């Protein structure tokens, strides 16, 4: 993305072409500048930037996952409740042993267990989605709507609708800590984004994802095992939701039935604003991250400016619709 951008600038194509190609980045810079002016530069100060990073990190994992799925022309509505279930499962294995209301009272599990349990849960749900879409031939919208409800039910049954609290400090610090001024969460996102970037850009699998999203029939004719690749993409996304859930329970120090609710819509909105076309076959990791940050500064900026939270939803909705309106024109297949 960055190399691409610099290259484009250097070439004779000029700034106009560069701006046309990177609408998502332009949107982000314009919004950030507006916010900067309105807050008299306060929003550019480190504490603000740091808060934004912490607030958006978990969502970034979900966006990376669903971003890849959308590249293959799919969709995933189960994210919110899967992350909620994962957060509950991971928290339940990280509760302090002397906490009386713990799900496993008196048990002191090793610190890696919540991660393993959480990530496996996420991966399992992703795998299940993938099998339904690829081999069951269910429309992704319906398949993931079903798993969404299953994840919801599983979470309520597992936690008996109670809060899973009193998480160990050793667990919390992984999500809440910092390396110097930089929050751990942001570092995890950088690592995950790098891995997804590598996958999409440098492996055969990534190329296959773009091909499947761009023209599933031609992908099959070209010898791509479309079904297998779809299972892989949903499973990989599930693993990312698993990480998101673990980090979320660590950051909050608890999990309950409301944790991560609506995250699927935030993630889908973010990648859409970031230029990942619902028609499939288009999108970059840079776009996904820019999309998350763009929605982040919209949220953060409106809160900072004291906009009523109900109006925030309204404004956010309009911004997403405008973005999609333009992208649909930009990426329409001639």
């Amino acid at each position: 993305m960055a190399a691409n951008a610099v290259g484009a600038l250097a070439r004779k194509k000029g700034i106009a072409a560069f701006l046309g190609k990177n609408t998502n980045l332009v949107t982000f810079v314009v919004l950030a500048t507006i916010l900067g002016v309105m807050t008299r530069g306060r929003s550019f100060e480190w504490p603000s930037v740091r808060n934004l990073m912490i607030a958006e990190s978990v969502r970034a994992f979900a966006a990376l996952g669903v971003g890849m799925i959308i590249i293959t022309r799919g969709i995933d509505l189960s994210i919110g409740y899967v992350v909620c279930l994962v957060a509950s499962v991971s928290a339940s294995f990280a509760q302090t042993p002397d906490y009386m209301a713990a799900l496993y009272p008196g048990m002191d599990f090793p610190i890696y267990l919540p991660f393993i349990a959480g990530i496996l849960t996420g991966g399992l749900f992703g795998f299940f989605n993938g099998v339904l879409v690829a081999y069951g031939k269910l429309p992704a919208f319906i398949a993931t709507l079903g798993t969404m409800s299953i994840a919801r039910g599983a979470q309520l049954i597992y936690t008996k609708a109670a809060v899973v609290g009193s998480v160990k400090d050793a667990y919390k610090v992984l999500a809440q800590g910092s390396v110097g001024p930089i929050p751990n969460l942001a570092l995890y996102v950088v690592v995950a984004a790098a891995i997804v970037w590598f996958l999409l850009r440098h492996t055969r699998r990534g190329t296959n994802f773009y091909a499947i999203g761009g023209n599933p029939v031609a992908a099959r004719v070209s010898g791509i095992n479309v079904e297998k690749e779809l299972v892989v993409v949903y499973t990989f996304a599930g693993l990312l939701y698993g990480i998101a859930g673990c980090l979320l329970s660590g950051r909050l120090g608890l999990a309950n039935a409301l944790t991560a609710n609506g995250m699927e819509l935030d993630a889908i909105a973010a990648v859409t604003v970031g230029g990942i076309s619902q028609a499939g076959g288009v999108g970059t990791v840079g776009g996904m991250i820019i999309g998350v940050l763009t929605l982040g500064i919209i949220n953060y900026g409106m809160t900072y400016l004291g906009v009523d939270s109900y109006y925030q939803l309204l404004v956010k909705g309009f911004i997403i619709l405008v973005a999609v309106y333009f992208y649909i024109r930009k990426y329409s297949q001639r």
Partner: protein
Amino acid sequence: MADDRAEYVLEMLGIYKSFPGVQALDDVSLHVRPGKVHALMGENGAGKSTLMKCLFGIYREDGGEIILKGRLAKFHSAKDALEAGVSMIHQELSNVPERSVRENIWLGREPLHRFGPITFLNHGKMHRDTAALMKRLEMNIDPADRMGGLSISKQQACEIAKAVSYEASIVVMDEPSSSLTETETEHLFRIIRDLTARGVAVIYISHKMSEIFQIADDVSVMRDGKMLGTWPASELDEDKLIKLMVGRDNTQRFPTVDSEIGELRLEVRGLTSAESRSFKDVSFDLRRGEILGIGGLVGAQRTELVEAIFGLRKTSCGEILVNGKRAVIRSPRDAIRHGIGLITEDRRGSGIFPLLSVTENTAVASLGSYIRGGLLLEHRRIEAEARRFNEQLRTKTPSMWTQIQNLSGGNQQKVLVSRWLMTLPEILIMDEPTRGIDVGAKFEIYTIMAELARNGKSIIMVSSEMHELLGMSHRVMVLCAGRHTGTLEGPEASQENVMRLATQFE
């Protein structure tokens, strides 16, 4: 002159229509008499369907006049045509499978109950009218049945019933009998005779010669978008008709195909489709350096056959041998592993990835050969190889990273050929390799094919263009309605013989 006008119910005068790169209709005129069956004949792509689509308001002609019952007609949509008394049975079934027979027949003109400004469907009338229509046409179909649940021939009967129900003065039938049995065709002819007795003109398009001589009064023949003329059916016979349809001069140039034909490479034995109305018991051989043409009319199941060989369609019996060894091909991946490539007939639908670059489009089928350390794609080598193949084929593109959708049809096709060459195949199947590309690019594709054959590749070419078929193939294999009706070689491979085999219906 005035009398002349009264003689015809429909006159199409000097119709022109062009599509990018093709003059589909070139000064075509047609005069149709009321109460007569007018057969419209011609090879694939002669312009019959295009002409009828102009009549029916689906296409707008570029020039010319349509005079219906003495009055100038300008149709902007099928609806206009239907209201003016022209109905049409389309070549492809065009029903809504999930709805009932009666809803399908009255679609878009449903009888309504009216209460002032409020209207709602009059199901009772719809049912009664449909039942009456079926009775009149002696069709045993329940108006309440779900359309998709009927057999193909009954669905076809419903299309016929629907066309009749408009009480039109002209009924166009584009290959109405293609999925009918002999008895059903007899039934169709009774309906046609009933219509003509009521003064309705029927324009009948079919490739089945015997039908034409059974039912038609007048026969018009088209060739290459031009109208050759109209004859009374009594003045023609099958041989004359075939000569008229195919007897055009070869204005196209072909490169000399001088490859050396070597050992046996592909043997297909008794291959039969898993689908009931597709190809049956097809056997043929293909040798090294050979170009085998597959000819036939629309519906001959040529595409289905080659897609089955490539693992895209299921077969119920038969076997495929590659280099003398039995090959199990269940998916395109298996086919590619056996050194087979397929360029599909639908470049846009199943060929290109419109938003991906030329490089990606070229490399997509052979990425497995360009991986380092079991994971990392070797972008530089991939681009270099993709560039090399595209340069060999002289693909014109601004850069290797241009989106393929920005190239012309001919250049897209070269990228697709490059894609398969990059998989290093021994057998290349090309389904309509020059469809929708301009004349200059066509010659380039032919040159590439000759060059590939010279380098020892074996090519199967499905083509609906007679000259291409005869000009490029060592042998021509002809299918008719899924059966292999013959293979022609040398001087035997003439237009007349191909057409004769292509119309050899059971």
